[in-house]
């Protein structure tokens, strides 16, 4: 039996009674969950169930109406997205958000933003002093591109990549942050079956780097294959929580999905 303390120590993220109300609409209605460090957790549920809203609250894009988010033992209160990123939480977006006019490599270089320091004055006035840091950023970004398998496309314009590669690039960019927690919002949406398979393998590869992964996903095959744990949300509440097998047996979940 685990003690309560060791359980808390193993949780990288804890949501307590999280709520979000937009006007009169309750999008998230009291969600409590703990995410184990180093695990892969999938959040599933019908459209409009509040999954992305939860992601947006964790990453500081939305302020919760009530409830709390504790990351690595620290409560996160009213933090801006860039501040959340600096704590080691990276994310991708449901509709891929690359920097389309920048090159593939430059996109990942932006991911190194927090791992480098030069400011505006120094950048304009003293570029020779920063050449070293610039070189380091470029090298590290290239490493992440190779990790994700886009090394050959470094010089292409990001907007010109096919969707599958764009999703991979968005993940490479998030990984360049060296996060402890990676939130993927529908990483397989719009991908064909071959690309989805590659995405599953990539998530395994990311997990093997001891990065905790939480994903929102609709592709059940992918979810059941890679997840340690599945959270099912409907109408802003958790209606199922367990291993992929447990969730598949859960009568509430089956009802929600079959629209009883």
């Amino acid at each position, binding site marked *: 039996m685990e003690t309560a303390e060791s359980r808390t120590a193993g949780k990288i993220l804890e949501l307590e009674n999280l709520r979000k109300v937009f006007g009169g609409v309750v999008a998230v209605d009291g969600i409590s969950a703990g995410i184990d460090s180093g695990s892969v957790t999938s959040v599933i549920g019908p459209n409009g169930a509040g999954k992305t809203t939860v992601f947006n609250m964790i*990453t500081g*894009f939305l302020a919760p109406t009530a409830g709390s988010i504790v990351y690595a033992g620290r409560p996160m209160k009213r933090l*801006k*997205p*860039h501040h959340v*990123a*600096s704590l080691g939480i*990276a*994310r991708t*977006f449901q509709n891929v*958000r*690359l*920097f*389309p*006019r*920048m090159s593939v490599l*430059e996109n990942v*270089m*932006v*991911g190194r*933003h*927090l791992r*480098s*320091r*030069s*400011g*505006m004055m120094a*950048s*304009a*006035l003293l*570029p020779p002093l*920063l050449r070293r*840091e*610039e070189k380091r*950023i470029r090298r590290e970004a290239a490493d992440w591109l190779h990790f994700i398998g886009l090394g050959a496309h470094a010089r292409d314009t990001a907007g010109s990549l096919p969707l599958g590669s764009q999703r991979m690039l*968005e993940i490479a*960019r*998030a990984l*360049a*942050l060296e996060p402890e927690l990676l939130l993927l919002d529908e990483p397989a949406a719009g991908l064909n079956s071959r690309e989805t398979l590659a995405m599953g393998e990539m998530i395994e590869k990311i997990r093997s780097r001891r990065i905790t992964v939480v994903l929102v996903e609709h592709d059940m095959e992918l979810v059941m294959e890679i997840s340690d744990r599945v959270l099912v949300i409907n109408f802003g509440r958790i209606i199922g929580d367990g291993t992929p097998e447990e969730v598949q047996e859960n009568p509430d979940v089956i009802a929600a999905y079959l629209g009883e």
Partner: protein
Amino acid sequence: MQRRDLGGLIALILVVLATPAAIGNEYYLGVLIFTAFNCLACIGLCLLMGYAGQISLGHGAFVAIGAYAAGIFTVKLGWSPWGAMLAGAGITAVVAALVGVPTLRLKGHYLAMATLGFASIVHILAVATVDLTGGPSGILNIPRLCVFGFPLDSDIRFFYFSWAAVVLGLYLGFNLINSRVGRGLRALHGSEDAAASLGVSTAGYKIQVFVLSAVYASISGSLYAYYVNYIDPGPFGVMHSVLLVTMVAVGGMHKLWGAFTGAVLLSLLPELLSFASDYLHGLGIAYKSDYDILIYGAVLLIIMLFLPQGVFDGLGSAARRGRQIVRR
């Protein structure tokens, strides 16, 4: 800085060095000096518009602050011209931060509205605070700038100095764009949410680049005051701000060279039009200078319709297409 931009900068320096000998006419040298002022303001504005994706309709006001600081501190307080220019830049930075902090924290183009209002306030102040600015009659006898003991008392000297300032402005701009900070700016233009999710302080960066671009405008205003040695509120109306934005958009806001090209083109266009009117007179066609504005508008319309990326990129891709056809 990228090699291509460095090459462009060196080419620009060579052209600048050769220009006075090539034209040898004080009047046109003067036109080119005014062109340099516009270039400087547009380079700063391009950093804001093209790289951070924000529009300021108040840069004419920052030019005015730079010019009036130069006039007031030297004439009324007896400061050195350099000190007055620095003071102007400092005041501009503070004022820009005061305008920018509340508006740039919001998403969207609130800055455009706030700066438009700001520009008219500054213009009204310049007209109304007679004790400080001299009101409509302005400030006379602004001293000349001295560089290493040489007074900039001839057009040739001022020409070289003002274009050196443009080259420096471009150089600093290119350094910035190709740095970590520049990547952050381009990123937030591409997607503000994505940039923020990677740790780029989007509001902070927008405010910083707005302040920087305002300082570019302020310095161009100070140089203007030291060149003409006399300022009044006339040139600093809201339309001047609009003109600067137009220059950047016409040239192409996504590249510093584009903004530069736009500033040069639109600064020289009135001169080209007066050439054209002389020519038409020679042909016996009565051309009135009132028509200038029509032609001006038509030129802008044509550029925006057919070269929406701006003249610089538009002509660049036309040249590439031409080369491909020739190769075939």
